[in-house]
């Protein structure tokens, strides 16, 4: 975290993008004692107690909301902690993180929910725990969803695992309607995916790597749409990766079901031809899919079928990645490259407006989670990210703050760079 005694911050002449208000304009923002005190042109302040940030020509966005992050705390603190994960977040412009419950122990009790909330009190950004749907993520016994939500869980997920038993999934959905909570679903049929290492297709066949068929994801999405239709639950499909999934979710929404979804930057950035390098940092779940699937995800974003972009930040030690492709763990870190990777593909290559992209990483995920975030409002705590969309940089292993370095983006040239992040009202990150 940037050490700074000055309490007040003035962001001068930035181009403010605020999807919450639906507008884009040039203005100053004044932050006093951590609270947004004014958004208008030519704000004058006292010299001594104010940090001035010249944002001329830069984009000023609400702090990003990343709804899918693994902080590995408690239990795997050698990979990441709440503290280091939060520092990585603010470096990536992320000021609100929803953290997944597949820790050790699993976040399936109110004590664990409180542990996350208390430990994140001093973290660089806001951290909101997602609690497990089933005890110990075993897919068998439903957690105390009522008690957990009272304790502060903002959603429920067995992420990393899929509830294979359809009856249990159905009862979870029915019960979730009592509390109006969102279920974040990792869609995977284990009978179809077992033993798989990469997307099943031309390249898996060529490389002799066991395939993971799109069927494994699509079969469960189809099941869960049916269960949601019957139960009335609000479901969110996370890290959607298949064309079939996009099509099914599109239809389900046209029908009026409460179903949302997100996609990761790495599924937008790469296709399975990139695996010919056997780069273990590209070994992720769901796998990097075919170009056809990637195109469907891009269209899904443009058409508004896909609601959010989330990193699925999954830290792993070098020893888990510097091994054979078969033995390597699944996952890539993603907090620090969330914006740049998405911006490079969506805005630079696909000509999506930056306004639309900012919406996908601020207001839209906040709405899915039902939290007050992703906006810049007078009278509220400042969570703001300043971006230089003209910058370009090659991603280097050494540049990561995250405790783990397993980034799929190492060696890639990405456009767009976070210049500074104001999180919880304080200057939390400043690019040197």
């Amino acid at each position: 975290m940037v050490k700074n005694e000055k309490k007040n911050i003035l962001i001068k002449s930035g181009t403010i993008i605020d999807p919450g208000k639906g507008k884009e304009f040039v203005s100053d923002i004044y932050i006093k004692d951590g609270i947004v005190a004014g958004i208008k042109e030519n704000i004058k302040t006292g010299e001594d107690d104010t940090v001035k940030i010249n944002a001329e020509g830069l984009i000023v966005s609400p702090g990003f909301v990343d709804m899918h992050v693994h902080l590995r705390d408690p239990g795997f603190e050698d990979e990441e902690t709440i503290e280091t994960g939060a520092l990585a977040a603010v470096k990536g412009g992320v000021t609100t993180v929803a953290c997944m419950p597949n820790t050790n122990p699993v976040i399936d009790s109110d004590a664990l929910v409180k542990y996350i909330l208390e430990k994140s009190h001093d973290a660089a950004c806001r951290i909101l725990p997602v609690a497990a749907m089933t005890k110990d993520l075993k897919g068998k016994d439903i957690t105390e969803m009522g008690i957990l939500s009272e304790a502060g869980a903002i959603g429920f997920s067995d992420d990393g695992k899929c509830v294979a038993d359809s009856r249990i999934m159905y009862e979870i959905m029915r019960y979730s309607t009592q509390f109006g909570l969102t279920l974040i679903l990792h869609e995977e049929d284990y009978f179809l995916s077992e033993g798989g290492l990469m997307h099943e297709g031309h390249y898996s066949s060529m490389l002799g790597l066991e395939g993971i068929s799109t069927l494994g994801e699509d079969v469960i999405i189809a099941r869960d749409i049916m269960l949601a239709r019957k139960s009335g639950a609000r479901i969110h499909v996370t890290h959607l990766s298949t064309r079939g999934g996009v099509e099914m979710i599109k239809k389900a929404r046209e029908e009026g079901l409460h179903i949302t979804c997100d996609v990761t930057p790495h599924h937008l950035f790469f296709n399975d031809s990139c695996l010919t390098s056997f780069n273990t940092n590209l070994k992720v779940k769901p796998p990097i899919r075919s170009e056809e699937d990637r195109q469907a995800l891009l269209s899904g974003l443009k058409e508004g079928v896909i609601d959010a972009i989330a990193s699925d930040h999954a830290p792993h030690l070098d020893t888990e990645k510097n091994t054979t492709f078969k033995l390597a763990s699944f996952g890539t870190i993603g907090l620090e490259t969330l914006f740049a990777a998405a911006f490079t593909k969506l805005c630079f290559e696909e000509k999506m407006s930056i306004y639309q992209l900012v919406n996908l990483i601020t207001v839209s995920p906040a709405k899915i989670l039902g939290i007050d975030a992703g906006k810049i409002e007078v009278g509220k705590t400042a969570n703001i990210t300043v971006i230089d969309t003209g910058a370009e940089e090659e991603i280097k292993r050494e540049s990561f703050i995250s405790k783990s370095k397993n980034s799929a983006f190492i060696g890639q040239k990405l456009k767009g760079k976070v210049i500074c992040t104001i999180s919880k009202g304080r200057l939390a990150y400043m690019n040197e």
Partner: protein
Amino acid sequence: MLSKKSIVDVGSLEPEDIKLILFNADSFLEISRRDVKKVPTLRGKTVVNLFFEPSTRTKTSFEIAAKRLSADIINFSSSSSSLKKGESIIDTLKTILSMNVDLIVMRHSDSGTVKMIDRFVDVPVINAGDGKYQHPTQALLDLYTIKKRFGKFEGLKVAIVGDFLDSRVARSDMDLFEKMGMEVTIVAPTMLLPEDYSEMKVRHNIDEVIKDTDILYMLRMQLERQDRKFYPSVMEYNRFLTLDMKRLEMMKPGSVVMHPGPVNRGIEITDEVMDVGGKLGEKIAIEEQVTYGVAIRMAILYLILG
């Protein structure tokens, strides 16, 4: 003399490399037939046979090839299962390299591992088979066997029969044979093929190709590489895929039968066919493949280290 420092897959071999290897194999084949089978070409060079998966044929073949060229060859075997998470394969490599070796011959049970290792080390690496990915020296010796039998490649019809999905030999052979202008058909049941095989020429029954094929390449059923088994039974295999006497007799004059070995007798090829003599027995080129394997590996070692 070859275009790359290492041989990790068939795809990275240039046409010139292939020509050069086949050309040199002739003179090394001649050496292997002499009374004194040794030349001083690689004296003072150290080659390590680094095998993370059990092998007798390929390891022995490389060992004989290196010894006939007067190189010192050291065998290092370790079962892949002992190299679990936390025990780095890279560390093992560093240890070996610290002893100033000149070339590594490597086999591993996981696909892509030799390609990964090649990026980490400066010395040349020869892939002696990795997982289900590639086995380039096998493909080259198969190609050499075909050259010796037919004297040409263009237009020859090859049927590769059996467990395509789990076979690094099939992947390597298909790449190399097509590169040399041969027509390759894969004969396999759906569960031993990739999910989408629309880009490949595929048949499901050996009887559909048996009369018209120049080279019948029987794959070993890789039972040890299958995590889950979907093929119903040996009886079913015999019905659609096994080479038996009736099928052998249907093959056209001049055609050959190949197999990378070791043969699962009674599955890919019946006992009767394996032991057949006379005119029909001449079709079976399995022992030639082994003989030519030494010559091909001598040629490769010579071209990389000589």
